[in-house]
Structures are given as C-alpha cells and as structure tokens.
C-alpha cells in the first residue's frame, strides 16, 4: 500500500473518520491497529520482525528502568549507612547490570537488521575472495525477507533504549505504546527517525477535531504529492534510461543524469516526508522535520545539518558522541599525543569517530560497496575541508568576500555540485562504473546533446521538460519564501478566495500533471528500500 496508491488514500479517509469519531482515549490504540494493518498489507511476514524488535526493546528498557528505580530507592534508604565509596561501588555494579541489558537489547535489534540486510552482501564478498583464491564452491545466497523500513524502526528502537539507559526518558510500562512508537505507519517506511521523548508528547495524547489542523495537514500532504508525482516520478524514466547503460550514455549524459537524480531524490524524499508529516499533523501528532532547504547549503558540513536531519542527528548522538568521548578514545588520544604531538592527538577522537560514523552511514544506506564508498567520500571531503580551515581563514582575511551575494551563490553552487557528484554512487551498479561514468564527463566531449535534440530521446517530451522546469522553479521559489517563515501561514493570511484558488490550483496540478494514469504504476519511494 504505497502512499501514492488509491488504496492508501481510501485507508486514510476511513482512518481519519474513525480517529475523530471514536472517543479520544481510543485514538492511539486505533493508530496501532491501523499501523499493523498498513504494515501487514505490505507483507504479513514483516510483522514478525517488528514484533521481535518491539518485544526485545520493551523488555530491555523495562529491566533497565527497574534497575535504575531500585538503585535510587536503595541509595535513598541507605544514604546514612553507606560511605561515599560504598555508594560509588554500588552505583558502578548496578550500572554494569544496566549496561548488559542495553548491550543485549542492541545486539538483538541491530543483529536482526544486520542479518536481513547484509547476509547476502557478506556472502557475495566471501565468494569474491574464494574465487580470487581459486578455492572451493561458491557459497549459496540465502532468501530472506527484507522488511520495508526496518532500518528506520530499528534506529528508533536503539535510540529509545539508549535514552532509557542514559535516564533521559522513562521506560514505557505499556508494551502497546512502545509498539505504536515503533510502528506508527506514516513514518514507518521512510522516517523521519523520531525520538521517544519528543514523539510521546503528542502520539498518545487525545486530539479533538480541529478543522484548521486537518486542513494544514492536508495542505502539507498535497505539497508532498506535488513533489513526488509531478517532479520525482516524471523524471524517473529518464534517470533509468541514463543510468541503465553507462556505455551508451556517457559524458554529458552523465551530467544530465546526475542533475536529474539530484532533483529526483530531493522531490521524492522530501515529498514523502511532507506526506508523512502532513498525515501526522492532520491527526494532531508532531513529527520532527527532516529537511531544512538542504540544497541552499554553503558547505558539505552545513548540508549534513540540513539533509535527512533526523538520521544525521541520530548518528551524532548515538554513535559520534559516545565513541569520541569513550574511555578507549581518551586513552588513544593520550597515546597519540605523547608519541605524535598535540596536533595529532587533538584530531584523533574527531577523525576516528567521524570515520566510523560515515562508514556506518554508508552501510545503513545499503548493502553495497557503492554506499560504503559514498559514505567514505563524504568523510574524506569533510576532513579535507576541516584541514583547509586555516587556509580559508587566511583567504577571508585577505579578501573581503564572505558576505557578498556572488560569493554565497558560488558556495551554494559548489556544494550542490559536490553533493550531486556524490549521489552518482546511488545510480550505477558498481563503484568502478560510477568512477568511469564520472570521468567520462571530462573526456567524452559530447556536449552537442544539449542542442541536437538527443535529450528528447530519454523518454521525456518537450511538454515533460516544460512541466519539470516550471515545477522545479516553483519548489525553488517556495524554498526561498520559507526563509521568511511558513508559506502555509502566509497563504492562510490571505482572503479566502485567494487561498482557495492557490490550493485548488496545486490540487489540479497534481491531478493533471502528476505522472500516473492507466497503465502507469507510481513508483515506490526511494527511501522505502532502506
């Protein structure tokens, strides 16, 4: 049941009616039932995986919480009787018990993800090694269901468990509430990756009907459908042609494919997130934002604070900080400082932790070397930028260009090119093919395709190009307008006929220009496969 299917729209209509018709205490149980129905419709076997993750997460979190509560009560009762050292020793023993529950919960949750997502990738690499050594029969691949969105709900589960361990949230006593937190259907398949402390504020609360809130939610959904159906799905056939045969479509075609894919991914992913947040908003539930006009970033570092924010922040809070502030890293820092000097020692925790984060980010995106190289490519560029900081500072002291509009445009353009080039790893079958395709941009010399009509042979007509250009321009204008605040609020402040005309025009645009119709199968959202 894709977000773009008629079944899903029917499902939503029935759900919204029931959600506001039932007593408010029945709203979150209804959402749990609807979420499991939604997920079960995709494939009933997926339910087993999410139930296993839910059970493990709930159980481990409860044990951690009970231990923490018991520790508090014990120390309160024996405050006078125990010395400071005895209290510290008791705390350390209890913390070790809680850590064991945490590690157990994480191993099961992440192990579940690792097995279904990476088993065949490992087998494929082992076969490559065996073949190179000329030894034995190749290992057989295994058939495992890859549950849709498993990477997203596993990360939410890990975040929840770690937060309970850190004591920043209290473990939920009701297992059905934990089940809803992990399975809430709008965000189940492509995020955003929510934190329990934030989402629980609105997920279980009663939400009386509010026409304004429902309208706002529907408006956000409509904007998401516009980006997905009018831009992303219209571009997709051309991208498949361009990246399907890198020998035939080399040189300037790669450049075209690169920009098409950059626009496609933005429209697809942000469109999907708009639909997700809009559905939740219509039901009074607040989900975290996942994008902040990322293609206007002036550096790669800034881009990663504005693109897929909930994933970046997840890696920062649950991988980067714990690793870089661990006692192992501290010992390593001291060792490097004493042997290699303070400059190297200072860089060790940051660089090593960043390397691990980017390796994990690449692996999270998919079981393929393309994603690993993509992750490490990001790492390399970020670290080189970090090392060049003194040079940039010297340049800016010499030339006063920092506030100039042309320089900002240059920075945004440079970052956009960099990000687009890195995204090529997502387009081609293997790393070698990606590098060959990228290299051909500078060697093929087939720039004539821009004026000899070749671009009309990619499955896009002149009308398609017109629609895409106008729609993309609209998205850019809306993004620029968002700098001054919410565009929906600005429209809402207009007289009723004006706002009705604007929303109706957008609705018509989706209806008339959306890439669907008889024989057309709206494509799955790109991030569903993660």
């Amino acid at each position, binding site marked *: 049941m894709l977000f773009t299917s008629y079944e899903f729209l029917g499902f939503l209509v029935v759900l919204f009616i029931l959600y506001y018709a039932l007593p408010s205490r029945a709203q979150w149980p209804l959402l749990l039932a609807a979420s499991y129905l939604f997920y079960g419709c995709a494939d009933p076997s997926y339910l087993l995986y999410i139930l296993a993750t839910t059970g493990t997460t709930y159980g481990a979190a409860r044990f951690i919480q009970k231990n923490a509560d018991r520790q508090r009560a014990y120390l309160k009762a024996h405050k006078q009787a125990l010395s400071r050292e005895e209290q510290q020793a008791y705390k350390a023993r209890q913390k070790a018990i809680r850590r064991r529950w945490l590690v157990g919960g994480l191993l099961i949750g992440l192990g579940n993800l690792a097995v279904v997502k990476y088993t065949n990738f490992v087998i494929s690499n082992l076969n490559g090694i065996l073949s190179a050594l000329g030894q034995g029969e190749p290992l057989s691949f295994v058939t495992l269901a890859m549950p849709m969105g498993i990477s997203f709900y596993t990360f939410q589960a890990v975040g929840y468990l770690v937060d309970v361990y*850190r004591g920043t949230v209290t473990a939920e006593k009701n297992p059905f509430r934990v089940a809803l937190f992990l399975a809430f259907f709008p965000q189940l398949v492509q995020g955003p990756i929510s934190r329990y402390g934030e989402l629980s504020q609105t997920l279980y609360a009663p939400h009386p009907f509010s026409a304004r809130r429902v309208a706002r939610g529907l408006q956000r959904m409509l904007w998401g459908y516009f980006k997905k159906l009018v831009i992303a799905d219209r571009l997709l056939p051309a991208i498949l042609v361009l990246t399907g045969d890198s020998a035939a479509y080399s040189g300037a075609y790669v450049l075209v494919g690169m920009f098409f894919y950059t626009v496609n991914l933005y429209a697809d992913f942000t469109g999907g997130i708009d639909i997700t947040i809009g559905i939740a908003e219509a039901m009074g539930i607040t989900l975290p934002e996942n994008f902040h006009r990322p293609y206007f970033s002036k550096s790669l570092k800034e881009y990663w*604070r504005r693109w897929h924010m909930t994933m970046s922040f997840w890696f920062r809070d649950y991988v980067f*900080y714990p690793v870089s*502030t661990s006692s192992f890293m501290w010992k390593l820092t001291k060792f490097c400082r004493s042997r290699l000097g303070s400059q190297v020692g200072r860089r060790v*925790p940051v660089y090593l932790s960043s390397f691990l984060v980017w390796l994990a980010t690449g692996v999270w995106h998919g079981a393929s070397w393309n994603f690993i190289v993509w992750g490490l490519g990001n790492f390399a560029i970020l670290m080189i930028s*970090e090392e060049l900081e003194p040079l940039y500072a010297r340049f800016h002291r010499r030339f006063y260009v920092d506030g100039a509009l042309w320089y900002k445009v240059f920075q945004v353009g440079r970052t956009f090119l960099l990000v687009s080039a890195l995204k090529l790893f997502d387009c081609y079958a293997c790393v070698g093919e990606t590098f060959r395709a990228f290299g051909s941009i500078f060697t093929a010399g087939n720039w004539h395709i821009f004026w000899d009509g070749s671009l009309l042979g990619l499955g896009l007509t002149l009308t398609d190009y017109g629609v895409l250009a106008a729609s993309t321009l609209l998205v850019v204008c809306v993004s620029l307008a968002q700098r001054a605040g919410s565009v929906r609020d600005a429209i809402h402040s207009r007289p009723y006929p004006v706002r009705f005309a604007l929303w109706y025009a957008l609705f018509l645009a989706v209806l008339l220009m959306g890439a669907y119709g008889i024989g057309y199968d709206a494509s799955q959202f790109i991030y569903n496969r993660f």
Partner: protein
Amino acid sequence: MEELLNILSELHPDVDFTCQEGLVDDAILDSMDIVSLIAAIKDVYDVSITARDIVPEHFNSAAALYRLIQRLADED
C-alpha cells in the same frame, strides 16, 4: 572560567564567548568542536563529559558549560 574562555577562544578566535547564548543553536559550535572541547576540558579540569551530557542547554554558553563542569567535578 578564565581557562574555559581560553579553550573556547582557541577553537574560534573570532567569537566573543562572554556574551554568546546560542553557541549550539546558532551553529557556532558544531559536533567536531564539541568533541575537541570535551578533550580540552578533560585535560584542564580532569572532568569527563559523557554523551549523556552533550545537550544544547549545556553547550549554548560558556556560563552553562562552566556550570556543567562544576557539577561534574562535585559529583566526582
């Protein structure tokens, strides 16, 4: 406090840390700065700041960070 201001100034010599109240919220300090800062604080104050303590409230101003250091020193 003087030592903390020196550590911060080494990271960003162009920032006046005595009056900034949104070091994290305004993206003056990023995650890499925070890790470098924590290592320097460990050196100077012998205080371990863990991942649990890394929240914007503790890092948004020099005063808030100093309060965190004092609290952790007391707990030790």
